[in-house]
C-alpha cells in the first residue's frame, strides 16, 4: 500500500506524532472531525430556508448568528445537527429504562435477535449449499447461476409481501424477519465457501487420496479447515447484510418494534432526529457485529496457527 513508488521507505525511529499518524485512531479522529464540520455546515445550509421562512412568517428580525443557532435546534430539521442526534441517542439509551419501549437499546436488541437468527440460518444454508455444489457436478452447474440470479430479485421491495405470505402459512414472530436476513446473507456465504472448499490445491487432494481417505475425511481434515478463512470473510459481509434484512423485515410486520420500526415511526411522525439516531444505532450495531466476527476470526485463526 505504498503510496508513492518514488520515495524509499525511511527506517528511522519516528517521533510520537508520526507514530500516531501511522496508527488508525488519529486519522479516523481527524477525518471524523472534518466530516462533522461539513455536517454542521450542511445543517445550516439545508435548514436555513425553512428557518428564514419561519422568521418571515413571524416577522422577527434576525441575524446570521440567530440563523446558525436556530437551524441547529429545529424540531423537524431537514438535516439534524450532530449534537441533536447525539443528544437524542443519549436520551433514548442512557436516559430511559433498558426494558422500556422508548429505549433504543431495547429496539436494537429486537433487531439484533432476528439479525442473528437470520444470519445463523443463512450461514448454515450457505455452507450446506456450498458443500453440495463442491461435491456434486449437477448441483454445481445448475444451482450457481440461480444463486446469482436470486440476488437480483429486489427482495427488499417485496419483503412486505413475503412477510405477509409467511405469516399466512403460519410463520410469525422472529422467523419471517429472520428469513429475509437469511435470503440476503446466504449469498456471500455460498460464494465464499465454494471458493474456500475449492481452495485446497490439487496436490493436497491427491495427498488425501494417497492415504485412501474417505470423502468425509477429506472434507473435515482438508476442505473445511482450508475454507475457514473464507468463511469468516463472508460472514463479515453476511452479518452486515443480515442486519439490513432484519430492519427491512420489521417494516411491514406492523412496525411493532426494532430499529426498522423506529425508522418508520420517525418518518410517519416527521421526527428526523429519531430517524437519524435509529440509523446511527443500526450502523453502530453493524460495526459491532462485524467486529465480533472479526474477533472470532482472529481467535480461530490463532488456534489454527495463523501467522500473527
Amino acid at each position, binding site marked *: 500500500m505504498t503510496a508513492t513508488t518514488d520515495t524509499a521507505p525511511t527506517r528511522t525511529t519516528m517521533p510520537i506524532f508520526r507514530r500516531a499518524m501511522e496508527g488508525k485512531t488519529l486519522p479516523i479522529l481527524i477525518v471524523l472531525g472534518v466530516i462533522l464540520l461539513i455536517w454542521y455546515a450542511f445543517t445550516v445550509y439545508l435548514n436555513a430556508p425553512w428557518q428564514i421562512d419561519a422568521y418571515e412568517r413571524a416577522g422577527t428580525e434576525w441575524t446570521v448568528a440567530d440563523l446558525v443557532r436556530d437551524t441547529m435546534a429545529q424540531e423537524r430539521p431537514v438535516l439534524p445537527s450532530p449534537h441533536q442526534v447525539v443528544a437524542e441517542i443519549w436520551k433514548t439509551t442512557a436516559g430511559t429504562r433498558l426494558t422500556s419501549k422508548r429505549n433504543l437499546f431495547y429496539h436494537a436488541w429486537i433487531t439484533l435477535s432476528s439479525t442473528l437468527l437470520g444470519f445463523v440460518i443463512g450461514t448454515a444454508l450457505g455452507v450446506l449449499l456450498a458443500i453440495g455444489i463442491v461435491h456434486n457436478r449437477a448441483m454445481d452447474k445448475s444451482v450457481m447461476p440461480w444463486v446469482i440470479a436470486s440476488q437480483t430479485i429486489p427482495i427488499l421491495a417485496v419483503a412486505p409481501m413475503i412477510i405477509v405470505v409467511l405469516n399466512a402459512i403460519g410463520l410469525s414472530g422472529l422467523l419471517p424477519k429472520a428469513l429475509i436476513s437469511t435470503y440476503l446473507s446466504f449469498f456471500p456465504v455460498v460464494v465464499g465457501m465454494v471458493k474456500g472448499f475449492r481452495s485446497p*490445491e490439487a*496436490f*493436497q487432494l*491427491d*495427498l*488425501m*487420496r*494417497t*492415504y*485412501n*481417505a474417505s470423502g468425509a*475425511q477429506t472434507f473435515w*481434515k*482438508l476442505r473445511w*479447515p*482450508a475454507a*475457514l478463512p473464507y468463511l469468516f470473510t463472508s460472514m463479515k459481509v453476511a452479518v452486515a447484510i443480515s442486519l439490513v434484512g432484519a430492519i427491512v423485515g420489521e417494516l411491514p410486520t406492523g412496525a411493532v418494534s426494532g430499529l426498522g420500526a423506529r425508522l418508520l415511526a420517525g418518518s410517519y411522525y416527521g421526527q428526523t432526529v429519531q430517524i437519524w439516531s435509529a440509523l446511527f444505532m443500526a450502523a453502530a450495531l453493524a460495526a459491532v457485529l462485524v467486529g465480533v466476527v472479526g474477533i472470532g476470526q482472529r481467535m480461530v485463526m490463532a488456534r*489454527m*496457527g*495463523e*501467522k500473527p
Partner: protein
Amino acid sequence: MNANPAIRQEAPSPQTSQPVVEAKGLGLTFETNDGPVHALADVDLTINKGEFVSFIGPSGCGKTTFLRVIADLEQPTAGEILVNGMTPEEARRKRAYGYVFQAAGLFPWRTIEQNVALPLEIMGYSKAERKERVHRTLDLVNLAGFEKKFPWQLSGGMQQRASIARALAFDADLLLMDEPFGALDEIVRDHLNEQLLDLWARTGKTIGFVTHSIPEAVYLSTRIVVMSPRPGRVTDVIVSPLPKERPLDIRESPEFLEIAHRVREGLRAGHGDD
C-alpha cells in the same frame, strides 16, 4: 547415443530381486482441448525391493505422471502396471506407499506433530500409537523438539523434512518422491540428500525419486532412469556403480563425474529446445 550398452540393461537389484513396481508397455494419453497429449508411451520398467531409482528428464517428459500412475492418481490408457503384485488401486487402498510432493504441502493449520499424524488419523491408528510413531519419525528426520511449531515457523528445509516424516509415519515400504528438494537451496539440499541416503540405508525402503538435478540423481540412486518427452519414453537406464556408503565428496570422484556425464548426454539427446 549411449556409450556403453552393457550397463544399460536392467540390473538385478543389490538385494533380493523381488519386484515392487512392474510396468509393461505402459502408456498414458491426456485428452485436452488442444487434442491428445501423450504423457507416457510404451514404458517398461521394473523396480525391485530396496532399490533407489531416480527419474530424470526435461520438463514435461512424464516423470510426475509415471509416479502418479504408480500411486493410482492417474489411470494408464495402455499397458499394465502392478504394485506389489496388485493393481495400483488395490495397492493404494492397502496404503502400500508414501508420497512426497514437490512442495512440502504441510497443512498450515496443523502443527508439525499434527501434520505428521494426519495419515495416521485417517488410517485409524490409536491415539497412543499415533503419538509413538510421530515421535519416532520426527526423530528420524531430526525434527525432535519442533512438534508444536506451525509450518511457517520452520525453514523450507525443515518443512520438507516434516513432509518426508509424514510419508514415513505409516509403514509403507515404497516411498514415491516427486522433486522433494526442488525448492531448496543447494546447501540445505546437500544436507537433506545425505539424510535421505542414510534413512534409505537404515530402513531398506524402496524409493522412486524424481529430480531435475543430475548430481542429485547420481548421488542418491542405485539406478537412474532418463526420460525424454513427447511422448514420455525411457531413453536410458543407468545402473550406478557407486558404493552404498556415499560421503558428500564422492561427488568430486571420477566415477561420479562419469555417470553424471552419461546422464547429461542422455538428457541432452532427448531435450529439444523449450
